[in-house]
Protein backbone atom coordinates (compact mmCIF):
# COMPACT_ATOMS: atom_id res chain seq x y z
CA UNK A 1 0.00 0.00 0.00
CA UNK A 2 1.34 3.35 -0.98
CA UNK A 3 0.71 5.85 1.78
CA UNK A 4 0.96 9.44 0.76
CA UNK A 5 0.68 12.06 3.44
CA UNK A 6 -1.26 14.90 1.94
CA UNK A 7 -1.14 18.10 3.99
CA UNK A 8 -3.79 19.76 1.84
CA UNK A 9 -6.39 17.63 3.49
CA UNK A 10 -5.11 18.01 7.05
CA UNK A 11 -7.74 19.15 9.53
CA UNK A 12 -10.30 19.50 6.80
CA UNK A 13 -12.20 16.32 7.58
CA UNK A 14 -13.62 14.67 4.49
CA UNK A 15 -15.26 17.75 3.03
CA UNK A 16 -12.74 17.67 0.16
CA UNK A 17 -14.07 15.44 -2.63
CA UNK A 18 -12.39 12.04 -2.76
CA UNK A 19 -10.84 10.68 -5.97
CA UNK A 20 -13.45 9.32 -8.38
CA UNK A 21 -15.19 6.24 -6.95
CA UNK A 22 -12.80 6.12 -3.99
CA UNK A 23 -13.89 5.13 -0.51
CA UNK A 24 -13.00 6.84 2.73
CA UNK A 25 -12.27 4.69 5.79
CA UNK A 26 -10.99 5.55 9.24
CA UNK A 27 -8.57 2.78 10.14
CA UNK A 28 -5.45 1.49 8.42
CA UNK A 29 -6.65 -2.10 8.94
CA UNK A 30 -9.98 -1.42 7.21
CA UNK A 31 -8.23 0.32 4.33
CA UNK A 32 -5.96 -2.69 3.83
CA UNK A 33 -8.87 -5.12 3.96
CA UNK A 34 -10.84 -3.02 1.50
CA UNK A 35 -7.87 -2.74 -0.82
CA UNK A 36 -7.37 -6.50 -0.73
CA UNK A 37 -11.05 -7.07 -1.53
CA UNK A 38 -10.70 -4.70 -4.49
CA UNK A 39 -7.62 -6.48 -5.81
CA UNK A 40 -8.72 -10.09 -5.18
CA UNK A 41 -9.94 -11.86 -8.30
CA UNK A 42 -7.39 -12.88 -10.92
CA UNK A 43 -5.52 -15.21 -8.55
CA UNK A 44 -8.57 -16.96 -7.11
CA UNK A 45 -10.24 -17.24 -10.53
CA UNK A 46 -7.20 -18.69 -12.32
CA UNK A 47 -6.62 -21.25 -9.58
CA UNK A 48 -10.23 -22.38 -9.06
CA UNK A 49 -10.90 -22.38 -12.83
CA UNK A 50 -7.93 -24.71 -13.10
CA UNK A 51 -10.17 -27.35 -11.45
CA UNK A 52 -12.15 -27.56 -14.69
CA UNK A 53 -14.25 -30.48 -15.93
CA UNK A 54 -11.13 -32.44 -16.95
CA UNK A 55 -9.65 -31.87 -13.50
CA UNK A 56 -12.85 -33.07 -11.77
CA UNK A 57 -12.58 -36.22 -13.85
CA UNK A 58 -8.87 -36.69 -13.07
CA UNK A 59 -9.16 -36.04 -9.30
CA UNK A 60 -12.26 -38.20 -8.78
CA UNK A 61 -10.59 -40.98 -10.75
CA UNK A 62 -7.46 -40.63 -8.60
CA UNK A 63 -9.65 -41.04 -5.51
CA UNK A 64 -11.49 -43.99 -7.08
CA UNK A 65 -8.27 -45.82 -8.02
CA UNK A 66 -5.90 -44.85 -5.22
CA UNK A 67 -8.07 -43.65 -2.34
CA UNK A 68 -6.44 -40.96 -0.24
CA UNK A 69 -2.89 -42.17 -0.87
CA UNK A 70 -2.08 -39.39 -3.38
CA UNK A 71 -3.02 -36.50 -1.07
CA UNK A 72 0.67 -35.69 -0.46
CA UNK A 73 0.95 -34.83 -4.15
CA UNK A 74 -1.56 -32.01 -3.71
CA UNK A 75 0.48 -30.54 -0.85
CA UNK A 76 3.61 -30.79 -3.01
CA UNK A 77 1.92 -29.06 -5.95
CA UNK A 78 0.71 -26.13 -3.84
CA UNK A 79 4.01 -24.20 -3.80
CA UNK A 80 4.68 -25.15 -7.44
CA UNK A 81 1.44 -23.56 -8.65
CA UNK A 82 1.98 -20.51 -6.45
CA UNK A 83 5.57 -19.82 -7.55
CA UNK A 84 4.77 -20.21 -11.25
CA UNK A 85 1.72 -17.94 -11.10
CA UNK A 86 3.48 -15.39 -8.87
CA UNK A 87 5.92 -14.77 -11.72
CA UNK A 88 3.13 -13.81 -14.16
CA UNK A 89 1.65 -11.55 -11.50
CA UNK A 90 4.95 -9.65 -11.22
CA UNK A 91 5.35 -9.46 -14.99
CA UNK A 92 1.75 -8.35 -15.52
CA UNK A 93 1.87 -5.64 -12.86
CA UNK A 94 5.28 -4.35 -13.98
CA UNK A 95 4.48 -4.12 -17.70
CA UNK A 96 0.68 -3.83 -17.78
CA UNK A 97 0.73 -6.23 -20.72
CA UNK A 98 -0.18 -9.87 -21.30
CA UNK A 99 2.13 -12.87 -21.61
CA UNK A 100 1.63 -13.33 -25.37
CA UNK A 101 2.61 -9.71 -26.01
CA UNK A 102 5.75 -10.09 -23.87
CA UNK A 103 6.89 -13.24 -25.74
CA UNK A 104 6.22 -11.55 -29.07
CA UNK A 105 8.13 -8.40 -28.14
CA UNK A 106 11.10 -9.96 -26.34
CA UNK A 107 11.63 -13.23 -28.24
CA UNK A 108 10.63 -12.18 -31.75
CA UNK A 109 8.01 -13.15 -34.29
CA UNK A 110 8.75 -16.92 -34.54
CA UNK A 111 8.29 -17.61 -30.84
CA UNK A 112 5.43 -15.13 -30.60
CA UNK A 113 3.45 -16.80 -33.38
CA UNK A 114 4.41 -20.30 -32.18
CA UNK A 115 3.24 -19.59 -28.62
CA UNK A 116 0.01 -18.05 -29.90
CA UNK A 117 -0.83 -20.92 -32.27
CA UNK A 118 0.10 -23.54 -29.68
CA UNK A 119 -2.03 -21.79 -27.04
CA UNK A 120 -5.00 -21.51 -29.39
CA UNK A 121 -4.80 -25.21 -30.32
CA UNK A 122 -4.50 -26.53 -26.76
CA UNK A 123 -7.13 -24.08 -25.50
CA UNK A 124 -9.60 -25.08 -28.18
CA UNK A 125 -9.11 -28.78 -27.48
CA UNK A 126 -9.55 -28.15 -23.74
CA UNK A 127 -12.71 -26.14 -24.43
CA UNK A 128 -14.15 -29.09 -26.32
CA UNK A 129 -13.63 -31.25 -23.21
CA UNK A 130 -15.50 -28.63 -21.11
CA UNK A 131 -18.52 -28.76 -23.41
CA UNK A 132 -18.30 -32.56 -23.60
CA UNK A 133 -18.66 -32.58 -19.79
CA UNK A 134 -21.65 -30.23 -19.98
CA UNK A 135 -23.24 -32.53 -22.56
CA UNK A 136 -22.54 -35.62 -20.42
CA UNK A 137 -24.02 -34.06 -17.25
CA UNK A 138 -27.06 -32.77 -19.16
CA UNK A 139 -27.72 -36.30 -20.41
CA UNK A 140 -27.39 -37.66 -16.85
CA UNK A 141 -29.90 -35.06 -15.61
CA UNK A 142 -32.37 -35.76 -18.40
CA UNK A 143 -31.80 -32.50 -20.30
CA UNK A 144 -31.16 -32.91 -24.04
CA UNK A 145 -27.59 -31.78 -24.89
CA UNK A 146 -29.01 -30.00 -27.94
CA UNK A 147 -30.63 -27.57 -25.48
CA UNK A 148 -28.09 -27.52 -22.63
CA UNK A 149 -24.90 -27.02 -24.67
CA UNK A 150 -26.07 -24.04 -26.81
CA UNK A 151 -27.69 -22.48 -23.71
CA UNK A 152 -24.41 -22.66 -21.76
CA UNK A 153 -22.46 -21.35 -24.77
CA UNK A 154 -24.78 -18.33 -25.04
CA UNK A 155 -24.56 -17.71 -21.27
CA UNK A 156 -20.75 -17.81 -21.47
CA UNK A 157 -20.73 -15.29 -24.30
CA UNK A 158 -23.28 -13.04 -22.56
CA UNK A 159 -21.35 -12.87 -19.27
CA UNK A 160 -18.16 -11.67 -20.99
CA UNK A 161 -19.73 -9.21 -23.41
CA UNK A 162 -21.19 -6.77 -20.88
CA UNK A 163 -18.40 -4.23 -21.39
CA UNK A 164 -17.49 -4.36 -17.70
CA UNK A 165 -14.53 -6.24 -16.23
CA UNK A 166 -16.07 -6.04 -12.78
CA UNK A 167 -19.36 -7.59 -13.88
CA UNK A 168 -17.51 -10.55 -15.43
CA UNK A 169 -15.22 -10.88 -12.37
CA UNK A 170 -18.10 -10.86 -9.87
CA UNK A 171 -20.05 -13.49 -11.85
CA UNK A 172 -16.92 -15.65 -12.07
CA UNK A 173 -16.07 -15.25 -8.38
CA UNK A 174 -19.64 -16.39 -7.56
CA UNK A 175 -18.99 -19.56 -9.60
CA UNK A 176 -15.71 -20.04 -7.70
CA UNK A 177 -17.48 -19.72 -4.34
CA UNK A 178 -19.90 -22.50 -5.40
CA UNK A 179 -16.94 -24.88 -5.16
CA UNK A 180 -17.27 -24.70 -1.36
CA UNK A 181 -20.08 -27.24 -1.84
CA UNK A 182 -17.33 -29.81 -2.62
CA UNK A 183 -16.21 -29.44 1.00
CA UNK A 184 -19.77 -29.88 2.30
CA UNK A 185 -20.10 -33.06 0.24
CA UNK A 186 -16.71 -34.38 1.34
CA UNK A 187 -17.73 -34.34 5.03
CA UNK A 188 -20.42 -37.09 4.80
CA UNK A 189 -18.47 -38.95 2.08
CA UNK A 190 -15.15 -39.01 3.92
CA UNK A 191 -13.84 -41.15 6.78
CA UNK A 192 -13.01 -38.34 9.17
CA UNK A 193 -9.98 -36.06 9.14
CA UNK A 194 -7.31 -38.42 10.49
CA UNK A 195 -6.75 -40.46 7.32
CA UNK A 196 -6.60 -37.57 4.84
CA UNK A 197 -4.36 -35.44 7.06
CA UNK A 198 -1.91 -38.33 7.58
CA UNK A 199 -1.79 -39.06 3.83
CA UNK A 200 -1.24 -35.40 3.10
CA UNK A 201 1.78 -34.94 5.34
CA UNK A 202 3.26 -38.47 5.13
CA UNK A 203 3.89 -39.42 1.48
CA UNK A 204 2.78 -42.98 0.79
CA UNK A 205 2.86 -45.18 -2.30
CA UNK A 206 -0.43 -45.29 -4.22
CA UNK A 207 -2.62 -48.34 -3.65
CA UNK A 208 -1.02 -51.15 -5.67
CA UNK A 209 2.36 -49.37 -5.84
CA UNK A 210 3.94 -47.08 -8.44
CA UNK A 211 2.62 -48.93 -11.49
CA UNK A 212 2.50 -47.51 -15.02
CA UNK A 213 -1.15 -46.53 -14.51
CA UNK A 214 -0.34 -44.80 -11.21
CA UNK A 215 2.51 -42.85 -12.83
CA UNK A 216 0.22 -41.84 -15.70
CA UNK A 217 -2.36 -40.52 -13.26
CA UNK A 218 0.27 -38.68 -11.20
CA UNK A 219 1.52 -36.99 -14.38
CA UNK A 220 -2.07 -36.18 -15.38
CA UNK A 221 -2.63 -34.58 -11.94
CA UNK A 222 0.50 -32.44 -12.34
CA UNK A 223 -0.54 -31.49 -15.88
CA UNK A 224 -4.03 -30.62 -14.65
CA UNK A 225 -2.73 -28.49 -11.77
CA UNK A 226 -0.30 -26.39 -13.81
CA UNK A 227 -1.68 -25.66 -17.30
CA UNK A 228 -0.25 -23.35 -20.02
CA UNK A 229 -3.40 -21.23 -20.36
CA UNK A 230 -3.09 -20.20 -16.70
CA UNK A 231 0.10 -18.22 -17.38
CA UNK A 232 -1.49 -16.30 -20.25
CA UNK A 233 -4.81 -15.85 -18.45
CA UNK A 234 -3.56 -14.42 -15.16
CA UNK A 235 -1.08 -12.00 -16.71
CA UNK A 236 -3.71 -10.64 -19.11
CA UNK A 237 -6.26 -10.52 -16.30
CA UNK A 238 -3.89 -8.54 -14.06
CA UNK A 239 -3.20 -6.15 -16.95
CA UNK A 240 -6.91 -5.78 -17.81
CA UNK A 241 -7.73 -5.03 -14.17
CA UNK A 242 -4.99 -2.37 -14.29
CA UNK A 243 -3.39 -3.53 -11.04
CA UNK A 244 -0.84 -1.02 -9.75
CA UNK A 245 2.71 -1.55 -8.50
CA UNK A 246 1.36 -1.06 -4.96
CA UNK A 247 -1.15 -3.89 -5.49
CA UNK A 248 1.60 -6.51 -5.95
CA UNK A 249 1.51 -7.85 -2.38
CA UNK A 250 -2.30 -8.12 -2.43
CA UNK A 251 -2.26 -9.91 -5.76
CA UNK A 252 0.36 -12.29 -4.37
CA UNK A 253 -1.97 -12.98 -1.45
CA UNK A 254 -4.87 -13.45 -3.89
CA UNK A 255 -2.79 -16.01 -5.82
CA UNK A 256 -1.69 -17.78 -2.64
CA UNK A 257 -5.27 -18.07 -1.37
CA UNK A 258 -6.30 -19.33 -4.81
CA UNK A 259 -3.59 -21.98 -4.83
CA UNK A 260 -4.71 -23.24 -1.40
CA UNK A 261 -8.37 -23.29 -2.49
CA UNK A 262 -7.67 -25.21 -5.68
CA UNK A 263 -5.79 -27.93 -3.80
CA UNK A 264 -8.40 -28.15 -1.03
CA UNK A 265 -11.21 -28.55 -3.59
CA UNK A 266 -9.13 -31.14 -5.46
CA UNK A 267 -8.72 -33.13 -2.22
CA UNK A 268 -12.52 -32.99 -1.70
CA UNK A 269 -13.00 -34.38 -5.24
CA UNK A 270 -10.58 -37.22 -4.44
CA UNK A 271 -12.57 -37.98 -1.28
CA UNK A 272 -15.73 -38.32 -3.42
CA UNK A 273 -13.91 -40.75 -5.75
CA UNK A 274 -12.60 -42.66 -2.72
CA UNK A 275 -16.16 -42.96 -1.34
CA UNK A 276 -17.33 -44.51 -4.61
CA UNK A 277 -14.46 -47.04 -4.43
CA UNK A 278 -15.14 -47.95 -0.77
CA UNK A 279 -18.84 -48.46 -1.44
CA UNK A 280 -18.04 -50.84 -4.30
CA UNK A 281 -18.98 -48.92 -7.45
CA UNK A 282 -19.15 -51.29 -10.42
CA UNK A 283 -18.60 -49.79 -13.85
CA UNK A 284 -20.87 -50.80 -16.75
CA UNK A 285 -19.10 -52.97 -19.35
CA UNK A 286 -16.96 -50.91 -21.73
CA UNK A 287 -17.30 -47.73 -19.66
CA UNK A 288 -14.53 -45.87 -17.84
CA UNK A 289 -14.97 -44.12 -14.50
CA UNK A 290 -16.39 -40.62 -14.83
CA UNK A 291 -17.97 -38.06 -12.44
CA UNK A 292 -21.54 -38.66 -13.72
CA UNK A 293 -21.30 -42.40 -13.02
CA UNK A 294 -19.83 -41.62 -9.61
CA UNK A 295 -22.61 -39.13 -8.81
CA UNK A 296 -25.34 -41.57 -9.84
CA UNK A 297 -23.74 -44.39 -7.83
CA UNK A 298 -23.31 -42.29 -4.66
CA UNK A 299 -26.87 -40.94 -5.04
CA UNK A 300 -28.32 -44.45 -5.08
CA UNK A 301 -26.03 -45.94 -2.41
CA UNK A 302 -26.95 -44.17 0.78
CA UNK A 303 -26.02 -40.53 0.08
CA UNK A 304 -29.28 -39.45 -1.57
CA UNK A 305 -30.20 -37.38 -4.62
CA UNK A 306 -28.85 -34.16 -3.07
CA UNK A 307 -25.26 -35.44 -3.24
CA UNK A 308 -25.85 -36.77 -6.77
CA UNK A 309 -27.26 -33.49 -8.04
CA UNK A 310 -24.60 -31.43 -6.27
CA UNK A 311 -21.79 -33.41 -7.92
CA UNK A 312 -23.43 -33.11 -11.35
CA UNK A 313 -23.98 -29.36 -10.97
CA UNK A 314 -20.46 -28.84 -9.61
CA UNK A 315 -19.09 -30.59 -12.70
CA UNK A 316 -21.03 -28.13 -14.87
CA UNK A 317 -19.78 -25.26 -12.69
CA UNK A 318 -16.21 -26.46 -13.22
CA UNK A 319 -16.77 -26.70 -16.98
CA UNK A 320 -18.23 -23.17 -17.17
CA UNK A 321 -15.41 -21.69 -15.09
CA UNK A 322 -12.80 -23.46 -17.20
CA UNK A 323 -14.52 -22.45 -20.44
CA UNK A 324 -14.73 -18.73 -19.63
CA UNK A 325 -11.12 -18.53 -18.39
CA UNK A 326 -9.70 -20.53 -21.31
CA UNK A 327 -11.67 -18.63 -23.97
CA UNK A 328 -10.59 -15.34 -22.44
CA UNK A 329 -6.94 -16.35 -22.37
CA UNK A 330 -7.24 -17.13 -26.12
CA UNK A 331 -8.99 -13.83 -26.89
CA UNK A 332 -6.58 -11.74 -24.81
CA UNK A 333 -3.52 -13.42 -26.35
CA UNK A 334 -4.82 -12.95 -29.90
CA UNK A 335 -5.67 -9.32 -29.25
CA UNK A 336 -2.25 -8.63 -27.72
CA UNK A 337 -0.29 -10.11 -30.61
CA UNK A 338 -2.50 -8.59 -33.30
CA UNK A 339 -2.53 -5.21 -31.55
CA UNK A 340 -6.34 -5.15 -31.41
CA UNK A 341 -8.21 -3.48 -28.54
CA UNK A 342 -8.54 -6.30 -26.00
CA UNK A 343 -10.25 -5.51 -22.72
CA UNK A 344 -13.38 -6.62 -20.89
CA UNK A 345 -13.80 -2.94 -20.03
CA UNK A 346 -14.48 -2.15 -23.69
CA UNK A 347 -17.84 -2.63 -25.36
CA UNK A 348 -18.29 -5.12 -28.19
CA UNK A 349 -18.34 -2.21 -30.64
CA UNK A 350 -14.96 -0.93 -29.42
CA UNK A 351 -13.22 -4.33 -29.31
CA UNK A 352 -14.95 -6.41 -32.00
CA UNK A 353 -11.97 -8.67 -32.77
CA UNK A 354 -11.40 -9.56 -29.10
CA UNK A 355 -15.02 -10.52 -28.49
CA UNK A 356 -15.25 -12.28 -31.87
CA UNK A 357 -12.35 -14.58 -30.94
CA UNK A 358 -13.95 -15.29 -27.55
CA UNK A 359 -17.35 -16.06 -29.08
CA UNK A 360 -15.81 -18.09 -31.92
CA UNK A 361 -13.84 -20.30 -29.48
CA UNK A 362 -16.97 -20.96 -27.40
CA UNK A 363 -19.28 -21.50 -30.40
CA UNK A 364 -16.89 -23.83 -32.27
CA UNK A 365 -16.18 -26.00 -29.21
CA UNK A 366 -19.90 -26.24 -28.36
CA UNK A 367 -20.73 -27.02 -31.99
CA UNK A 368 -18.13 -29.77 -32.23
CA UNK A 369 -19.54 -31.54 -29.15
CA UNK A 370 -22.99 -31.62 -30.76
CA UNK A 371 -21.73 -33.41 -33.88
CA UNK A 372 -22.84 -37.05 -33.58
CA UNK A 373 -19.92 -39.48 -33.14
CA UNK A 374 -17.37 -36.66 -32.83
CA UNK A 375 -13.96 -38.16 -31.84
CA UNK A 376 -14.02 -36.80 -28.28
CA UNK A 377 -11.62 -39.43 -26.89
CA UNK A 378 -9.09 -38.45 -29.53
CA UNK A 379 -9.48 -34.81 -28.54
CA UNK A 380 -9.00 -35.59 -24.84
CA UNK A 381 -5.77 -37.50 -25.59
CA UNK A 382 -4.56 -34.66 -27.82
CA UNK A 383 -5.19 -32.12 -25.02
CA UNK A 384 -2.98 -34.06 -22.63
CA UNK A 385 -0.13 -34.40 -25.14
CA UNK A 386 -0.15 -30.88 -26.58
CA UNK A 387 -0.46 -29.31 -23.10
CA UNK A 388 2.29 -31.60 -21.83
CA UNK A 389 4.60 -30.50 -24.64
CA UNK A 390 3.76 -26.83 -24.39
CA UNK A 391 3.89 -26.25 -20.63
CA UNK A 392 7.65 -26.53 -19.98
CA UNK A 393 8.52 -24.28 -22.93
CA UNK A 394 5.97 -21.69 -21.76
CA UNK A 395 7.51 -21.69 -18.29
CA UNK A 396 11.03 -21.39 -19.73
CA UNK A 397 9.99 -18.16 -21.47
CA UNK A 398 8.46 -16.96 -18.24
CA UNK A 399 11.68 -17.70 -16.39
CA UNK A 400 13.77 -15.87 -19.02
CA UNK A 401 11.43 -12.88 -18.95
CA UNK A 402 11.62 -12.70 -15.16
CA UNK A 403 15.43 -12.55 -15.44
CA UNK A 404 15.29 -9.75 -18.00
CA UNK A 405 16.91 -6.89 -16.09
CA UNK A 406 16.84 -4.66 -19.17
CA UNK A 407 13.04 -4.88 -19.12
CA UNK A 408 12.14 -5.23 -15.45
CA UNK A 409 15.05 -3.61 -13.62
CA UNK A 410 16.16 -4.78 -10.17
CA UNK A 411 12.75 -4.30 -8.58
CA UNK A 412 10.78 -6.97 -10.42
CA UNK A 413 13.37 -9.52 -11.62
CA UNK A 414 13.70 -12.90 -9.95
CA UNK A 415 15.84 -13.16 -6.86
CA UNK A 416 18.44 -16.01 -6.83
CA UNK A 417 16.18 -18.17 -4.65
CA UNK A 418 13.29 -17.60 -7.09
CA UNK A 419 15.49 -18.94 -9.87
CA UNK A 420 16.51 -22.02 -7.91
CA UNK A 421 12.90 -22.88 -7.10
CA UNK A 422 11.71 -22.21 -10.63
CA UNK A 423 14.45 -24.21 -12.38
CA UNK A 424 13.65 -27.20 -10.13
CA UNK A 425 9.97 -26.86 -11.11
CA UNK A 426 10.89 -26.54 -14.81
CA UNK A 427 13.12 -29.63 -14.76
CA UNK A 428 10.39 -31.60 -12.96
CA UNK A 429 7.71 -30.49 -15.40
CA UNK A 430 9.92 -31.10 -18.42
CA UNK A 431 10.64 -34.68 -17.29
CA UNK A 432 6.99 -35.41 -16.49
CA UNK A 433 5.67 -33.88 -19.71
CA UNK A 434 8.22 -35.82 -21.76
CA UNK A 435 7.17 -39.08 -20.05
CA UNK A 436 3.47 -38.25 -20.57
CA UNK A 437 3.93 -37.38 -24.24
CA UNK A 438 6.00 -40.55 -24.80
CA UNK A 439 3.47 -42.73 -22.97
CA UNK A 440 0.53 -41.39 -24.98
CA UNK A 441 2.40 -41.47 -28.28
CA UNK A 442 3.70 -44.99 -27.81
CA UNK A 443 0.46 -46.53 -26.56
CA UNK A 444 -1.58 -48.42 -29.11
Amino acid sequence: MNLIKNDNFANKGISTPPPPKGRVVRSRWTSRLLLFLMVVGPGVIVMVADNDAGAVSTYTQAGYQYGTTLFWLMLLLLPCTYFVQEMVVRLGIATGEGHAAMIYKRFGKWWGVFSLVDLQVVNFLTLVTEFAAISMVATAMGVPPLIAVPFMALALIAVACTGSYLRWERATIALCILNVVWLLIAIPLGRGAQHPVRNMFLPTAPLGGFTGDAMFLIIAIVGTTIAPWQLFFQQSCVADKRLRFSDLKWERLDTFIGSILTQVFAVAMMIAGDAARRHGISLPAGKDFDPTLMATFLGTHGFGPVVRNCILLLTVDAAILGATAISLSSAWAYGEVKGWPHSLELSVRKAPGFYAIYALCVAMAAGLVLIPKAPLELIIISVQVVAGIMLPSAIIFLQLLLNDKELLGERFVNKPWNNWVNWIIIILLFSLSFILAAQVLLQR
Partner: protein
Amino acid sequence: MAVLLKTNPDELYYVVHPLFDEPEEKISADDLGTMKMSKSVKLALYALRGYLIIMGLLVSYHVVSLAIHHVMP
Protein backbone atom coordinates in the same frame (compact mmCIF):
# COMPACT_ATOMS: atom_id res chain seq x y z
CA MET B 1 -4.22 2.64 -3.76
CA ALA B 2 -4.83 3.80 -0.21
CA VAL B 3 -3.97 7.40 0.43
CA LEU B 4 -3.46 8.79 3.93
CA LEU B 5 -5.42 11.99 4.12
CA LYS B 6 -5.06 13.29 7.62
CA THR B 7 -2.58 12.80 10.41
CA ASN B 8 -3.55 11.98 14.01
CA PRO B 9 -5.88 11.93 15.86
CA ASP B 10 -8.34 10.87 13.15
CA GLU B 11 -6.44 9.45 10.17
CA LEU B 12 -8.56 8.97 7.10
CA TYR B 13 -7.80 6.82 4.08
CA TYR B 14 -9.04 7.00 0.53
CA VAL B 15 -9.07 3.55 -1.04
CA VAL B 16 -9.45 3.49 -4.81
CA HIS B 17 -10.25 0.47 -6.97
CA PRO B 18 -7.51 -0.17 -9.56
CA LEU B 19 -9.99 0.24 -12.42
CA PHE B 20 -11.02 3.72 -11.22
CA ASP B 21 -7.58 5.00 -10.24
CA GLU B 22 -5.32 7.27 -12.27
CA PRO B 23 -3.36 5.12 -14.77
CA GLU B 24 0.28 4.71 -13.74
CA GLU B 25 3.23 4.54 -16.09
CA LYS B 26 4.27 0.94 -16.68
CA ILE B 27 7.55 -0.53 -17.87
CA SER B 28 7.43 -0.58 -21.67
CA ALA B 29 9.03 -3.22 -23.88
CA ASP B 30 8.18 -1.37 -27.10
CA ASP B 31 11.51 0.39 -27.55
CA LEU B 32 13.72 -2.42 -26.28
CA GLY B 33 13.45 -4.81 -29.22
CA THR B 34 14.19 -8.49 -28.72
CA MET B 35 16.00 -9.72 -25.62
CA LYS B 36 19.79 -9.81 -25.62
CA MET B 37 20.80 -13.42 -24.98
CA SER B 38 24.05 -15.23 -24.41
CA LYS B 39 25.15 -17.86 -26.94
CA SER B 40 24.23 -20.71 -24.60
CA VAL B 41 20.68 -19.38 -24.11
CA LYS B 42 20.31 -18.93 -27.89
CA LEU B 43 21.54 -22.49 -28.44
CA ALA B 44 19.13 -23.82 -25.79
CA LEU B 45 16.24 -22.02 -27.48
CA TYR B 46 17.20 -23.49 -30.87
CA ALA B 47 17.27 -26.94 -29.24
CA LEU B 48 13.84 -26.25 -27.72
CA ARG B 49 12.56 -25.16 -31.13
CA GLY B 50 13.82 -28.44 -32.65
CA TYR B 51 12.27 -30.49 -29.82
CA LEU B 52 8.92 -28.76 -30.21
CA ILE B 53 8.90 -29.19 -34.02
CA ILE B 54 9.74 -32.91 -33.75
CA MET B 55 7.18 -33.50 -30.99
CA GLY B 56 4.60 -31.50 -32.96
CA LEU B 57 5.15 -33.68 -36.04
CA LEU B 58 4.98 -36.85 -33.92
CA VAL B 59 1.73 -35.74 -32.29
CA SER B 60 0.24 -34.78 -35.67
CA TYR B 61 1.18 -38.18 -37.13
CA HIS B 62 -0.24 -39.99 -34.09
CA VAL B 63 -3.49 -37.99 -34.13
CA VAL B 64 -3.98 -38.46 -37.88
CA SER B 65 -3.40 -42.23 -37.63
CA LEU B 66 -5.82 -42.45 -34.68
CA ALA B 67 -8.38 -40.38 -36.61
CA ILE B 68 -8.07 -42.70 -39.64
CA HIS B 69 -8.53 -45.66 -37.30
CA HIS B 70 -11.60 -43.90 -35.82
CA VAL B 71 -13.16 -43.34 -39.26
CA MET B 72 -12.20 -46.77 -40.69
CA PRO B 73 -11.94 -49.18 -37.73
